């Protein structure tokens, strides 16, 4: 890795350009320049990824990955992995060049960049240019001697180089004159270039240098004033007036300068090497060297102060017309027009967020001075607070925003009301509050007579978001409409090119499918996760509902090891502000898993946590009875039936009447050594009089009845009950009730020839005995043997460790690990990590790996 760290105007960019363009440059170059004051980590990474992709020249990798889309949520680590994968995929050497790194003002991005730089594959070289030393923790690279530094001293022009520069610029100067110039500028590149511009064609170069030398003024200011003074009036005006832009094209320059012909001037300046640089091959957009632009801007403020706000306004107008809203807002702010800026931001914060510029929105929000309490901003603040999990604050801001919306003119009012309704919808969804959701949805999904393309697009976005949120809440309450709404949302999002919304709808759909056969649920969850993986979002928080639902189904069907893996993936993807409804589910699944493995001590706190979270939700939770039932049952199983009875007595009447609570009473009675009482308790479920959440409660009841009959010595009744349980469990291959109720003995006692479900019985016994369930497919006939290196990596696949972490454990490069993993997948005929682990277990490879 190479770092060029030197002050403004030292010639870093010129050096990079020269190096990049030199003949015999064998490396492919991925070049990017960090935008001014870049506070948005995602924007930085997308630009970097685009540069890396462009260098490879290929439209897409062999895996058919989609071009990266920005998301409202952003996972930096996943992005780093993606960039590393792209770099590894390059054949031949590649250089990653990042200029103006000091403009990266996102601490997250810097941390992520450090991760990238310390994990570079051997074929990649990084070159960074910056004005100041950065907080990149590169000690290990330095210690390993893998870091080269170029500093200001190295970039200084020597006297001889000064003479060469002057000669190349067509300047005739005596040796003494050149020496004087070198001494005065101290070999500073920018100074020399500025001097050269003024000297070229100057009638008396020696005099110029003498005067310059005799002045105490700072180099930049003196030469800048000289150079500017020498320009014709129209050029001066152009330079000054466009200095407040980060980038400029002919049209925009004409607008600010108030006269035509700017493009010609800009091209001429670039040709004269006067600190103007074109940004595209067609030379339509230009940028000034930062130092140059900064000085011009100061001069503009000094000479034409009354014009500055007007210039910003004109620029803002142009950017707004051309759809570059963030820039428009920035310039409006710079003009000091805070109310206008607030209005623009409020009107566009939703679409900016959907475009993945949430951090930009936040940066724009921060730019408002503290005293400005514009009600328009309430909407933006609400969105930010909601995204960061501060629900009460968000609600307060939304109230303000709503009042404000009522005061706006009609053309804005609809859009604002829709944005407010959308946020209220998200808020209600987060709180599990259905009434609130329905209230907003009626407003949002009503058809709209849209006027402009922009409004149609906005309308579609909002509609998709509304459908997604509505479906989500309906799902958590077990309502039938959930599926319809989520499907509609997914389809709409797919059509309008909003992959983020599409994935979220599908994820929620998987989540909502809980009442369906498990096979359906699993298929939908896998579909959603696969789509997320295609976009590189498989570790994003938005996939959590699908991940946990998948884990849940696996516990129900007895695939405990797999469920464990998915549960781990879920907790990794979760963030601090994950909603209570999801965390509740995670606890339930963890509890289920523990209980199935007979670890009732560990299961109880999980069920308790789920119960508590359920009580926090605004509406009663669909699984509330189930959770309470399991709390009571687990207490009884732990030998504390008295506690359970006491808790039972405290329950509300509707709960007590449910089938699930009937089952709990049955377990308590069994624990108290009262099988007759147990049969009494369970009767309501068996004869169908007690309402149940689903048939699984009946399965549980049958098994509990079987246990009671066993205690009473009625073996025929016992076997009948077990047989009925098997019949119910057959179609879904349900395992959980058998494991949780501890019915192994019952199953073993069942004569094989007396059951119509021998296969299921055998499978159940397998699971309950602790061996892994039979694989769905037979192992491939010619499964290639894994090499020792691959086996070593395989051992780590069931863990949480990422590829770089595995590499660290094995003391090899991440690139080696990736190569091994690719080979492992190929040999096992799988496509992802958890499938590989499952396969490896089926083939008993993991134990083999352990013993080597």
């Amino acid at each position, binding site marked *: 890795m190479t770092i060029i760290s030197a*002050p*403004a*105007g030292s010639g870093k960019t010129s050096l990079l350009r020269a190096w990049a363009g030199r003949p015999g440059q064998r490396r492919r170059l991925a070049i990017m320049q960090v935008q001014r004051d870049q506070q948005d980590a995602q924007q930085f990474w997308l630009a970097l990824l685009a540069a890396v992709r462009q260098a490879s020249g290929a439209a897409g990798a062999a895996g058919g990955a989609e071009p990266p889309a920005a998301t409202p949520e952003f996972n930096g680590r996943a992005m780093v992995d993606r960039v590393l994968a792209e770099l590894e995929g390059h054949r031949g050497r590649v250089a990653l060049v990042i200029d103006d790194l000091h403009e990266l003002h996102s601490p997250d991005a810097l941390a992520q960049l450090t991760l990238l730089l310390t994990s570079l594959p051997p074929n990649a070289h990084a070159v960074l240019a910056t*004005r*100041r030393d950065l907080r990149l923790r590169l000690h290990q690279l330095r210690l390993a001697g893998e870091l080269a530094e170029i500093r200001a001293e190295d970039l200084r022009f020597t006297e001889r180089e000064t003479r060469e520069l002057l000669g190349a610029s067509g300047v005739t100067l005596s040796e003494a004159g050149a020496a004087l110039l070198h001494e005065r500028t101290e070999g*500073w590149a*920018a100074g020399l270039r500025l001097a050269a511009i003024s000297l070229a064609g100057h009638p008396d170069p020696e005099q110029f240098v003498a005067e310059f030398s005799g*002045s*105490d*003024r*700072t*180099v*930049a*200011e*003196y030469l*800048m*004033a000289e150079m500017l003074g020498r320009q014709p009036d129209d050029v001066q005006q152009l330079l000054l007036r466009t200095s407040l832009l980060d980038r400029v094209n002919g049209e925009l320059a004409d607008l600010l300068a108030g006269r035509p012909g700017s493009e010609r001037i800009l091209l001429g300046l670039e040709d004269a090497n006067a600190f103007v640089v074109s940004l595209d091959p067609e030379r339509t957009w230009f940028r000034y060297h*930062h*130092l140059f632009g*900064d*000085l011009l801007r*100061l*001069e503009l*403020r*000094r000479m034409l102060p009354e014009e500055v706000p007007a210039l910003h306004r004109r620029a803002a107008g142009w950017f707004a017309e051309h759809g570059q809203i963030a820039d428009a807002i920035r310039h409006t702010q710079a003009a000091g027009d805070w109310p206008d800026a607030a209005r623009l931001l409020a009107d566009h914060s939703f679409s900016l967020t959907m475009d993945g510029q949430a951090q930009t929105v936040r940066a724009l929000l921060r730019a408002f001075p503290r005293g400005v309490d514009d009600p328009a901003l309430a909407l933006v603040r609400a969105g930010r607070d909601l995204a960061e999990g501060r629900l009460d604050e968000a609600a307060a801001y939304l109230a303000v925003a709503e009042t404000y919306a009522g005061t706006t003119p009609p053309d804005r009012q609809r859009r604002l009301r829709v944005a407010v309704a959308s946020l209220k919808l998200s808020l209600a969804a987060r709180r599990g509050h259905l009434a609130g959701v329905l209230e907003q949805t009626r407003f949002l999904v009503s058809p709209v007579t849209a006027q402009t393309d922009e409004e149609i697009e906005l309308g579609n976005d909002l509609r998709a978001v509304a459908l997604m949120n509505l479906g989500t809440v309906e799902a958590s309450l077990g309502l039938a409409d959930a599926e319809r709404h989520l499907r509609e949302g997914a389809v709409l999002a797919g059509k309008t090119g909003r992959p983020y919304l599409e994935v979220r709808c599908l994820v929620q759909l998987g989540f909502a499918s809980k009442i369906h056969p498990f096979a359906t649920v699993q298929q939908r969850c896998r579909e959603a996760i696969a789509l997320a993986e295609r976009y590189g979002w498989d570790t994003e928080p938005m996939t959590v509902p699908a991940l946990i639902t998948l884990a849940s189904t696996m516990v129900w069907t007895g695939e405990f090891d797999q469920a464990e893996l998915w549960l781990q993936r879920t907790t990794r993807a979760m963030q601090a502000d994950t909603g209570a409804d999801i965390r509740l589910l995670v606890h339930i699944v963890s509890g289920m898993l523990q209980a199935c493995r007979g670890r009732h001590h560990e299961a109880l706190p999980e069920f308790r946590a789920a119960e508590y979270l359920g009580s926090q939700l605004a509406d009663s939770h669909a699984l509330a009875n189930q959770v309470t039932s399991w709390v009571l049952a687990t207490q009884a199983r732990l030998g504390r039936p008295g506690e359970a009875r006491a808790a039972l007595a405290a329950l509300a009447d509707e709960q007590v009447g449910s089938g699930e609570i009937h089952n709990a009473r049955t377990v308590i009675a069994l624990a108290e050594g009262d099988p007759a009482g147990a049969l009494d308790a369970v009767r309501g479920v068996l004869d169908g009089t007690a309402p149940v959440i689903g048939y699984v409660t009946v399965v549980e009841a049958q098994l509990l009845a079987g246990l009671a009959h066993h205690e009473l010595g009625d073996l025929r009744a016992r076997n009948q009950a077990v047989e009925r349980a098997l019949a119910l469990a057959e179609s879904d291959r349900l395992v959980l009730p058998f494991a949780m109720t501890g019915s192994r003995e019952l199953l073993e006692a069942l004569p094989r020839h007396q059951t119509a479900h021998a296969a299921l019985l055998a499978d159940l016994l397998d699971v309950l005995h602790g061996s892994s369930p039979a694989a769905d497919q037979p192992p491939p006939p010619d499964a290639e043997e894994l090499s020792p290196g691959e086996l070593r990596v395989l051992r780590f696949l069931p863990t949480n460790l990422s590829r770089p972490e595995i590499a660290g454990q094995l003391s090899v490069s991440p690139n080696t690990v990736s190569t091994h993993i690719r080979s492992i997948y190929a040999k096992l005929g799988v496509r992802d990590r958890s499938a590989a682990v499952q396969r490896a277990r089926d083939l008993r490879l993991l134990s083999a790996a352990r013993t080597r």
Partner: protein
Amino acid sequence: MRGHLPAGDHDGMDPAPALYVIRIKGHLGAMVLSAFPALDPHHHGAHTVLTGLLDRSALYGVLAEIEALGLDLLEVRQVPPERKSPGSGDSRSP
């Protein structure tokens, strides 16, 4: 935190403003000086000395501006306000 200074309109996070003396190589002309409106300039020999009351954020803002303009920073010094003599000039600067 300096409790003796006059209360400014700042929140608890920012330390109270302090008096800073910043020395830069070369004479700063009107163009560059306009970047430091909060500071008082004086020429001292071949250097320019900028003096002013700055809180922490403002100080780093000034330093960032110096970096951006490619100026040669020679010295940054914080001067305790109790020892500042009233009237022009800081008795501690050479």
